């Protein structure tokens, strides 16, 4: 992997280059100003804000219930998980209890969402590095999950999944069978991806030793989620500060060792498998009863501040909600995991080649909707 010195043999002046905001591999409208020495990255500056919609400010002028659909649109890849985090906070402030069936179904859908999100990540990451076929394979599986979403929520992407106090309605008939069918097939499919990638020499050459960050440094940069765990730090909110009933399920938190792109890749692949296990446990133990608890028509939390942190597919997603006792939040501050994670990009890409920038952006799994809000 120490080929960088050689590749700098024939270079001259620093070339400044704009990657994005319209570029196939910046996953939206990220713009990176690269300073290149030949093909080696000397410096990288992220320029964000092209997708800024002021969601936090809009929230201040909406009632708590009206806010929810906006959070579908921050991280649109993991809309379910985003809404979930906000609602957990609101319910905690109001002291609303969600019935057990509701809680279980919520966890199931969030984990489905995690799988779907990781599939999308794998698809784009693979095609960034040039493996076209994995892209479409991943979309095939994601499609199944989106169909489940459609059956339950009536929408595929911006699902407006949950309501204060639980779900809008119970599972539709046939949902469980469909879910079981998907879960049974899924491991073989993941093996298929791994066949194409995990032991592929080119893939290893492109990901091992790229964008290495130690656990300590990862914490300092505020990385969370798979990028943190890829560096070997055992920190998963579902285990560290269980919420919403996660403590009732058994699952492992996959960890990497070297903190490189490959480890983050392996961690995410393994996380998909673990999510599947959680869903299977949920389906096995799914109790009867209502899916929605008692909740007032107008949500007026008592004045105060509350922080709700959940483990979204991308890392720690935090909602810091300030209430002044009215029906509208006084302030909602979102802690988007990849907004924080993106700042490490400069540190990660320095000294690598231009092609690695693509791999590293991919490995951070950014969603610009979330970064810019």
């Amino acid at each position, binding site marked *: 992997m120490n*080929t*960088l010195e*050689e*590749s700098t043999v024939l270079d001259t002046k620093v*070339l400044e*280059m*704009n990657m994005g905001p319209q*570029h*196939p*591999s910046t996953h939206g409208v990220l713009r990176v100003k690269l300073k290149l020495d030949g*093909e080696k990255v000397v410096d990288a500056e992220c320029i964000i804000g092209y997708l800024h919609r002021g969601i936090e400010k809009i929230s201040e002028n909406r009632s708590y219930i009206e806010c929810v659909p906006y959070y579908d649109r921050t991280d649109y890849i993991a809309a379910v998980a985003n809404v979930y985090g906000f609602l957990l906070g609101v319910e905690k402030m109001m002291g609303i209890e969600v019935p057990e069936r509701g809680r279980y179904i919520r966890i199931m859908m969030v984990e489905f969402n995690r799988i779907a999100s990781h599939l999308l990540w794998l698809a784009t990451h*693979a*095609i*960034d*590095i*040039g*493996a*076209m*076929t994995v*892209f*479409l*394979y991943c979309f*095939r599986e994601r499609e199944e999950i989106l169909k489940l979403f459609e059956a339950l929520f009536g929408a595929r992407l911006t699902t407006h999944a949950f309501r204060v106090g639980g779900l809008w309605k119970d599972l539709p008939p046939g949902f469980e069978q469909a879910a079981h069918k998907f879960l049974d097939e899924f491991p073989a499919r993941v093996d298929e991806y791994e066949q*194409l*990638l995990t032991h*592929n020499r*080119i*893939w290893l*050459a*492109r990901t091992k030793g790229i964008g290495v960050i130690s656990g300590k440094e990862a914490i300092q940069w505020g990385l969370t989620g798979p990028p943190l765990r890829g560096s070997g730090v055992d920190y998963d909110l579902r285990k560290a500060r269980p919420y919403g009933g996660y403590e009732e399920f058994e699952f492992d938190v996959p960890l990497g060792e070297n903190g490189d792109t490959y480890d983050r890749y392996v961690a995410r692949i393994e996380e998909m498998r673990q999510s599947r296990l959680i869903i299977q446990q949920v389906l096995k133990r799914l109790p009867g009863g209502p899916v929605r608890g008692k909740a007032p028509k107008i949500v007026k939390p008592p004045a105060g501040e509350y922080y709700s942190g959940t483990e979204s597919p991308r890392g720690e997603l935090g909602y810091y909600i300030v209430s002044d006792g009215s029906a509208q939040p006084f302030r909602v501050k979102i802690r988007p995991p990849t907004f924080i994670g993106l700042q490490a990009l400069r540190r990660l890409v320095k000294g690598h*080649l*231009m*092609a*690695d920038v*693509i791999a590293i952006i991919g490995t951070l799994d950014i969603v610009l909707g979330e970064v810019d809000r």
Partner: protein
Amino acid sequence: MIENLIIYFLIPFIKIGAIVLILSGAIAYLTLLERKLIAHIQVRLGPMRVGWHGLLQPIADGLKFVLKEDIVPSKADALIFTLAPMISLIPAFVVFSVVPFGPPGMFEGLLRGILSRFLESASVERIVSNPIASGGFVTDINIAVLFVLSVSSVGILGVILGGWASNSKYPLLGALRSSAQMVSYEVAMGFAIISVLLYAGSLSLVEIVQQQQAGGWWYFFIQPVAFFLLLVCGMAETNRLPFDLPEAETELVGGFHTEYSGFRFSLFFLAEYANMITVSALAVTLFWGGWLPPFPNVPWLGFLGIIPPVAWFLIKVFLILYLFIWVRGTLPRFRFDQLMNYGWKVFLPIALGHVILYAAILAI
């Protein structure tokens, strides 16, 4: 006089015309083949709308390219920008003038049949006995291999100049990459070919095939390593995955042709696929016995002769093209420095060692 005119002008022109037409068609349908194959590898259907299973898709694409607006970026070097696609396309076609599609004397019967209506039999015989007239190739020159190598090296310039003339950073990087890449892999490729030449003792492609016939073995069975070297280097030379760095769409947007659109883009596109066919044809000729059936001298395999030589040639070319497409559907892309490392530190030593080994075997 009239005989010479027929031998050296009329027949070659007909052949060239046929090759240009057939090749253009082949390229067009190669793109469709690629799209369909990759689609099926990726569990989807590919083009389905235009014609039965998308059979007319290439024509529609061609029309679209031709009818699109012709854009030259305002800061581009217009002259070179215009020339570059042609520079890369023309050599790709020129190479085929020395590729033997069939054995010498392939058109003997046909020619005799047509010409005997117009000419007296003596001159007909003179024409028919001339290999340039009756052979399954446009011409057979005694430096054909060198010719192929040198002409295809001209094609590289198109890529480089196109990248430079666009006056844009992504194309420039693409051009830089391609110049380094193609020069590096050309060396290993040359050595892979040299080990064949050691055995064949000729630079003429026709003679190389004839030598394989005389030996009874395709050179593939004697020098499989050289074949794979040629194939890998060929992939690199034609910018195919996993070596498609000059155009790596996810890194360099479109590489050297980022700024190209419409007709000019289609020329680059054609050139890439024409080069694929060239490499396949070269590999077939050098290693897979060109127009020969497998094991041409084994008597009980004689029934394979039912299939005409040209068909053998085309089948083999198709198989190699299939391999190209298959690889594209399977592998990720190298990084630039890794690519150079492989070229210089893996393929070149292997190729050198291979040549030395086989030269030693021959000398003993």
